């Protein structure tokens, strides 16, 4: 994976994938506890791409409108994490996380808030686990619920010429018993990526140190 600024070695990419794996495993476990059903995860994909390409990667996969919970994080590396799913899945997810506690009307009423809390739990557990693995701390913003297509979610202005490079990471999840599927996506700025690379190297030497 080569870019103008930072290149992650194969091993660094493996390490990042693994850390993300741990994070999303934790997130999936949280989701499982919230809805009481099995949650299936895909292998995370990690790439350095332009912002626009990241938006395209999401919109290419989904023709329908999307809904997303967004949380920005900062610390030794910063970026943005999103929990994304088709808008048509939204109410089903709300029903699932609220279980029998709410009437159908209440569920509609609480949709926004329930999505925000779900996103909060899933993204926080994921990011916090990653921070712990890298032995650093991150601060996270209050979650925000957004609707739109890939470009609006990533706040990409199609008219600007500058295409900031980002580390784009996404993972599919699906709830077998219910028709719920979505993605967790994470974008990291390239300047942060340099720090991330350093942190990954530390992580690798902690793990592999003894025999390479």
């Amino acid at each position, binding site marked *: 994976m080569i870019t103008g600024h930072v290149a992650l070695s194969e091993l660094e990419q493996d390490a990042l994938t693994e850390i993300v794996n*741990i994070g999303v495993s934790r997130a999936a476990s949280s989701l499982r506890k919230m809805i009481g059903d099995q949650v299936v995860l895909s292998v995370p994909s990690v790439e350095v791409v332009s912002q626009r390409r990241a938006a395209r990667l999401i919109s290419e996969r989904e023709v329908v409108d999307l809904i997303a919970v967004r949380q920005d994080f900062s610390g030794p590396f910063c970026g943005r994490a999103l929990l994304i799913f088709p808008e048509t899945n939204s109410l089903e997810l709300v029903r699932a996380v609220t279980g029998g506690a709410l009437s159908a009307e209440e569920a509609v009423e609480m949709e926004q808030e329930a999505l925000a809390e779900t996103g909060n739990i899933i993204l926080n557990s994921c990011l916090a686990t990653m921070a712990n693995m890298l032995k650093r701390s991150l601060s996270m913003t209050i979650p925000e619920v957004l609707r739109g297509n890939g470009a609006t979610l990533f706040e990409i202005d199609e008219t600007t010429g500058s295409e900031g490079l980002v580390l784009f990471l996404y993972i599919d999840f699906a709830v077998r018993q219910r028709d719920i599927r979505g993605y967790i996506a994470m974008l990291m700025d390239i300047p942060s990526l340099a720090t991330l690379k350093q942190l990954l190297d530390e992580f690798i030497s902690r793990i592999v140190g003894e025999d390479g």
Partner: protein
Amino acid sequence: MADEAIIGNADQLRAVLAAAGASGAWDWDIVRDRLTVDARFAELYGLGADAADQPLPTAAFFRAIHPEDRARIRIAVAGMLAGSEFFSKEFRIIAPDGAILWMHGRGRSQLDDQDEPIRFTGLLVDVTDRKRTEERLRIAQSAGGIGTFEYRDGFATVSVSSEFCRLLGLHPADRLPVRTINAVVCEDEEPLIPEDGAEPASIDSVFRIRRSDDGADRWIARRGEAMRDSEGSGYRLLGVIYDVTDAKLQETRLRELNDTLEQRVAQEIDERLRAEDALRQAQKMEAVGQLTGGIAHDFNNLLTIITGSVDMALRRLDNSADPRVGRALDNAMRGAERAAALTQRLLAFSRRQPLDPRAVEVPRLLAGMSDLLTRTITEAVAIAIEAPDDVWTIEADPHQLENAILNLAVNARDAMPQGGSLTIAAGNRQVAAHQSDESHVSPGDYVAITVSDNGTGMDADTLTKVFDPFFTTKEVGKGTGLGLSMVYGFAKQSGGSVLIDSALGEGTTVTLLLMRSVQSAEPPADAMDEREPFGSASETILVVEDDDDVRAYTVGTLRELGYRVVEAHDGASALALLDKQDQPIKLLITDVVMPRMSGSELAAAARARQPRLRILYTSGYPRDAIMRDGRLDSGVELLAKPFTFRSLAERVREIIDKG
């Protein structure tokens, strides 16, 4: 129970697992930090048979892993120990016999209430054969540009190969949503992956798509099979896609080719007819040129005799003679002069006139012509000459150029019987490579001399014939039909071209393109003495001419001028005379075209005997014998027939005086 019986027999279980491809199993106790493996695992890892089912240090897990894969697997295992749920990695191990085997390790972790992992268990499967097959398949796919897909009816996603994604311009992925795939198919095409749940009638089909990444329009073929795994289950579509754009385009091109065949044949025939016409025209011009050239030669000889004799008679006429004799002789002289001018034009047209090109400054030449033009053109026509000083120097025969311009001016005058304006302009013109066809000249720097009038103009039909010899729009007796063809011949012979632009009622513009010269113009010759320069008896001239009358006239004239003259009727006798002359010959005047020995052959032989001998050719029809590319060799003097008493006198004196 049968199951229990199998499980009860560990050896049998291992055999079944081995046959199924399962190569070993492990159980990693995270809390106690201990690893337990089965016999197959221990065997593969070379841990020894007694290591099976015994607690081992967890580091044993990595012992047999290929060094290049070890770090990667350590990281993955670290993930499992930190809370990742699934482990699925392919890696190489080095078996005790040194063989390298590809393993697929699959495992999962067991978490406690607090989400803390406590066990990590899994199975190793030998995938060496599959890896090789996959590699072969991958190479076959990418080399053949074939993408594979598998779709199960009712699923929202399709499992695809990376080549599949590449062919459609999609981001490489193992699974793609059906919608994403079908979005690249052009409208009004059926979807690539069926969406309505109905099994497609035929899987073999061709689709028009717009590639997602670069927007390119492509043709994609789909081939495959629909199968059912069991009665009542939905169908499964297993197929390949590949790009057939090139074949499609070729097919289209071929069809277009067929459709336009007739049209193209007609076009081809048309072009050929035009080329044939052009060739016929060129051949006609060449034939006419040869004919006129031949006539002109004989004619010039006759005219030399006529003008010479009339000239002589006029000069010998004394005052007491009948004045009518004088007038008659003057008339005869004018008639002969007109005949000579006509012959000159015939020669010019046939491009066989001897040209004496020199550097010419067109503005100066035009300025010198203004008197002549005003005399020739009626007062009803306003003449404007526009020739800026920065016009480049050209190389051309100035007399012939004047002649050409005069011809064009006369034509312009005749096109404006009610009067009008005539403009003669000169300007620089650069002909680029792409313009060279339309200008009929090779690319380069040219001076364009345009003669334009606002007269009657010509229609397209007339325009195609204007350069034909003897073609004239003028009334019978008014024109010879040689004007434009002479201009054309002159321009071509000078390495230039003539362009004509005209429409009925819109006037005519004729453009003469002449190549720029690298030399600068010579200063104009001093005005000539009014009197003919005489010779003396100490100057001997040898005249060689096969036509007795012409020779008699030439000899007579020279003697009258005071020269000593010897004569010969052919090359052989001329050389004999040269050999026995006690008095040196100053000048050899010889005809160019003579039987047996030509003028130039004679000149060469004479020069061999007497290197400093001066030579003057006389000719009414000088061909390649003395000309190269229609131009005289340098140092060769030529006097065109018919010549007059005066022109002969001046030329002979000039040559002898050069020393």
